[in-house]
């Protein structure tokens, strides 16, 4: 399941909801992304996440299906927020459930690596020097490409 929303999410409630009623699940892995107060040496006061409504949902669904294709998952969840967020705010949640831990760990890493480069989001960062758009990082491209070579 994927959700694109402005409002915050409750990590514990999402994990409990995934586990509820599915006793095939042996483990759940999760990753929570937060807004950091420091980026490239600049103090960040806020970021505004813009996205492409329609394409965002489509891409997130495709990325989730790709994870389901590669690993035997009982369930997967991606929640990505948009709008104005401040340091300490949650941005993104990935949760995956599987019978055994390895599939859940790997699928969670894969989903985060692909979200960075394959989902149509852009970040406008507010710092002491004014506002600027966050540039894509080569390290994120390398992390995403790593999964392309494997399959």
């Amino acid at each position, binding site marked *: 399941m994927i959700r694109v929303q402005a409002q915050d999410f409750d990590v514990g409630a999402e994990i409990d909801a995934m586990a509820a009623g599915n006793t095939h699940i042996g483990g759940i892995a999760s990753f929570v992304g937060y807004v950091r107060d420091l980026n490239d040496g600049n103090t960040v006061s806020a970021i505004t996440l813009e996205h492409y409504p329609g394409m965002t949902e489509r891409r997130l669904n495709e990325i989730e299906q790709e994870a389901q294709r590669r690993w035997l998952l009982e369930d997967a969840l991606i929640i990505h927020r948009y709008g104005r967020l401040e340091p300490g705010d949650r941005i*993104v949640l990935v949760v995956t459930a599987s019978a055994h831990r390895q599939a859940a760990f790997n699928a969670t890493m894969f989903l985060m690596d692909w979200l960075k480069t394959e989902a*149509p989001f852009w970040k406008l960062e507010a710092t002491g020097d004014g506002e600027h758009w966050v540039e*894509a990082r080569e390290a994120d491209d390398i992390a995403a490409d790593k999964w392309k070579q494997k399959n």
Partner: protein
Amino acid sequence: MKLLYFAWVRNKVGIAEENITLPDHVGDIAALLSWLRERNDGFADALSDMTAIRFAVNQEIAALDQPVTDDDEIALFPPMTGG
């Protein structure tokens, strides 16, 4: 054709979206970008470095030689930075 602009591409061209009718000679993304560049300085600036631009046709990432028609939704944006 519906055109959408995101992030700094939107800032530079000055609009978020528009509806246009394609000139007869514009048949693919590359020709569309050349035509847009001629419109004004904002478009010329936004589309000057093609390595910095990504494009989607009907919400799917596309290549420069992808054919386009007046029925398509085209989006122009910088490399994506999700997560």
